[in-house]
């Protein structure tokens, strides 16, 4: 009797504990997002109206009226890129999802292709297809000029296809098997089923891919800077204003201009994504082996297969050439095997890899946790202002990394929070830059878990956080996996803000990569890339294995194949 009472008291105490914890977490998240996303971006925006110490809209006026040409250049390349990249991703996703036994391998390559160190991939593309490209010139005897908007479109299409395909695979896998069987029973052939069941159900995902690629293309300056030639757009202009003219005001205003399409896209995203998840809720996904029976056939499959094969071919060439470059040396135009790049890298840079690894692990664990918690409060607890909050979380993903970095310096260069010059500023920036991918994936997963579960748990007396811990978290393992992989990977290989935030004495590997490229040391840059790719893929695979080993099947966005 007494022990029962004690037990009950303990329960009450623990319930109260969870209540307080709940409030603490909410306030903590709000403060974090306001401090590390809202505030820095606001500082950037305000910098544009602060002309020589006094308030003026001059810079904004000038930027908003004089850059139509750049805006148009950004827009048309972004639209074409988004379109092509999405179509390509549909092809890849379809081929992968219906591929049966090959799936593990195809997923593996896709996962590797997520790890795309900045600049070096564009450079390897020039090396393969440029005027003296080993394929265009060496094999075909052509002398093509790859510089210009077309080069940018091709490169971005390929870069963005990996993440798009992973997202689509996640959606296609969730198509209800009953629907496919019903279609077959009603005499529909595989192609009809594909067009009338599979594609319509994944359509919102397809549109989301389009919008995401559109925004990424707008914000990407690395690709146009390397292979844009005379092509200029808003993001290259921001780069020029920052790196060339050191004009913070103008680059701030340009950034604000770039946020306009981002806001439009975000609203569309919210609308479409909620619809898409409702369509797929509660279905029973098919087993891998059964999937093959529903593969599209004939010409349709051929049309989907062709771009996929080209994509995989490009990936092999690209990563192959980076690998070859990192173990070779050029002498009077002749390439020979050499360990020099490796030895140079090892003697001068091994500590930067170690530092990268530590940073990326922190970013992956902390960032994923924060991202998942945010999406829990937005999706499950329907916090007021949640949509605005969600927009804040998404915003850093949509602006060029260099500007988000400058925002951090503007925001945190003096007391009370002086972070400039510390490792923390680099890590925080990485965490909040990529937060939105984790929240998006987790939000999608939440809509798949019936809310009745929460209610049942509440009826049984559990506090909300207890429900989160005991009921929801076990169902979110795969979102955790996607968040971790994305955060870890981007922390390892994204250059954007790092250029401004990293200080002497805390160089990380991707900084040295940037450095090697800027001083024209391509062999060394290739070597650094190779090591970065290997380390990143290795850690991701180990992590996914560990997660899988803990029981339960991971099941979002195709990490399943691993």
């Amino acid at each position, binding site marked *: 009797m007494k022990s029962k009472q004690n037990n009950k008291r303990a329960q009450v105490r623990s319930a109260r504990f969870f209540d307080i914890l709940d409030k603490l977490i*909410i*306030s903590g998240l*709000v*403060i974090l997002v*306001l*401090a590390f996303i*809202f*505030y820095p971006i*606001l*500082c950037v925006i*305000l910098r544009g109206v602060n002309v020589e110490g006094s308030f003026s809209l001059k810079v904004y006026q000038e930027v908003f009226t004089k850059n139509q040409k*750049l805006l148009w*250049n950004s827009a048309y390349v972004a639209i074409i890129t988004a379109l092509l990249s999405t179509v390509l991703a549909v092809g890849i996703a379809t081929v992968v999802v219906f591929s049966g036994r090959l799936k593990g391998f195809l997923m593996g390559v896709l996962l590797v292709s997520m790890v795309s160190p900045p600049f070096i991939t564009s450079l390897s593309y020039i090396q393969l297809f440029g*005027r*003296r490209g080993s394929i265009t*010139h060496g094999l075909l005897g052509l002398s093509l*000029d790859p*510089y210009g908007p077309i080069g940018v479109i091709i490169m971005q299409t390929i870069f963005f296809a990996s993440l798009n395909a992973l997202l689509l695979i996640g959606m296609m896998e969730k198509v209800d098997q009953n629907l496919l069987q019903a279609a077959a029973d009603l005499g529909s052939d595989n192609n009809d089923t594909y067009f009338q069941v599979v594609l319509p159900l994944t359509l919102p995902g397809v549109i989301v891919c389009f919008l995401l690629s559109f925004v990424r293309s707008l914000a990407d300056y690395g690709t146009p*800077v390397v292979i*844009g*030639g*005379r*092509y*200029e*757009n808003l993001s*290259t202009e921001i*780069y*020029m204003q*920052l*790196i*060339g*003219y*050191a004009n*913070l005001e103008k680059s701030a205003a340009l950034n604000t201009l770039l946020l306009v399409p981002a806001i439009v896209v975000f609203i569309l995203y919210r609308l479409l994504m909620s619809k898409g998840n409702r369509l797929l809720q509660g279905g029973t996904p098919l087993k891998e082996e059964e999937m093959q029976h529903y593969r599209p056939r004939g010409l349709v499959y051929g049309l989907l297969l062709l771009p996929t094969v080209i994509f995989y071919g490009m990936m092999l060439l690209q990563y192959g050439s980076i690998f070859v470059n990192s173990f070779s*040396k*050029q*002498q*009077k*135009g002749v390439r020979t095997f050499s360990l020099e790049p490796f030895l140079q890298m090892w003697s*001068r840079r091994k500590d930067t890899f170690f530092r990268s690894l530590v940073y990326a692990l922190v970013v992956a664990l902390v960032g994923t946790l924060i991202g998942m918690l945010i999406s829990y409060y937005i999706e499950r607890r329907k*916090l*007021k*202002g949640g949509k605005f909050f969600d927009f804040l979380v998404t915003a850093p993903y949509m602006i060029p990394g260099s500007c988000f970095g*400058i925002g951090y*310096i*503007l925001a945190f*260069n*003096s007391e009370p929070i002086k972070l400039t*010059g510390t490792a923390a500023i680099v890590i925080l920036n990485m965490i909040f830059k990529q937060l939105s991918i984790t929240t998006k994936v987790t939000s999608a997963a939440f809509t798949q878990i019936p809310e009745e579960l929460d209610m049942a748990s509440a009826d049984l007396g559990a506090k909300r956080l207890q429900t989160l811990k005991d009921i929801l978290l076990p169902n979110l393992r795969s979102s955790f996996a996607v968040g971790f992989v994305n955060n870890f990977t981007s922390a390892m290989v994204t250059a954007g803000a790092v*250029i*401004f935030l*990293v*200080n*002497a*004495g805390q*160089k990380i590997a991707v*900084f040295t990569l940037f450095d090697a490229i*800027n*001083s*024209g040391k391509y062999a060394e840059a290739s070597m650094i890339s190779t090591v970065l790719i290997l380390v990143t893929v290795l850690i991701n695979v180990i992590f996914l294995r560990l997660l899988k080993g803990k029981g339960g099947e991971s099941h979002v966005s195709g990490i399943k194949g691993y």
Partner: protein
Amino acid sequence: MKKRILAILMMVTMVSVLAGCGKKAADDANSDSKEADEKSTKIEGTLNVVATSENYQPLFDRFTEEVGPEVEFISMSSGEVLSKLKAEGGTPAADVWFGGGIDAFMDAKENGLLEQVNFDAAADLTPEYKDSENYYFSKGVTVVGFIVNNEILEEKGLEAPKSWDDLTKPEYEGEILMSNPAISGTNYAVVNALLQLKGDAGWQYFEDLNKNITYYSKRGSDPSTKVAAGEVAIGITYIDGTLAELEESADVSVIYPEEGMPFVPEGVAAFANSENEEAAKAFIEWFYSDDENLKQLAEIDQKNTVLLVKPEIEGLELDFKQDELLTEDLSLFGSQREEILEKWATLMGDKGEE
């Protein structure tokens, strides 16, 4: 309840943001120079250096050995340094700026971002190559010339260009690569120096040259590396030790233009309000006070242009005759920068033209 918490928190933050965000004007440097008795005693701490290359490690090691502070360094382009400094609002993360086009140093001084460093040996330095008020110094100059890919020239049946005027010949159409002068200090030197040389005809020259240029690259090393890779036949580039390496790896030659070489001094300065001000000043004084340091620098840079900054260093000789350099009024480099780049951008139509 939570909703209200959220709303209140948002409001509080917004208000404090509006109050705090703007008021970070750069403090003016309070430069009461107190470098009296730091000679004999060793200095503690760390010196953070922004350098143009990682090769300076041995030089920094010697400083640590002789004076005390550990040196950590990082390489950044001048534009990055300036943007970062401006964003930091007077609380720089680094102490010393070692290398980079002098025009950026002039800009930085103008914006109050540099610290005055007075020391005896400063009197031995050529006045043209340092700031008259000792806000910045230089450690040599970057000279500019051409690099050509012999294979491609041969394939196209072209002679290698010998002079700046040659570059505008129609046969080189689409074969010349130059960096955007806003990004590249060396190519800015080309524009400024040739404008000084050619006077009123200067802009016409660049319009003619523009017809032959494929595009203006956004990284300073592109002209040389892309010529080596066979992407273009001719590059307008800085001439330094890395070009010798390129000559090893590919069939390229370096050309010194007949009219003379534009050049730009490479700056050295201490940042204003830096954390390790004492060490920063000590470094600059140490660096210029012993010729051994300058010799080591010459060895690392694989050039002896430090002789222009401090003539008569024993054992060093200039690799070119001084009259091979164009005559430049360096004082115009900083003051004309904005105007020249703006005009250049309009005339060369790089605002999104195909």
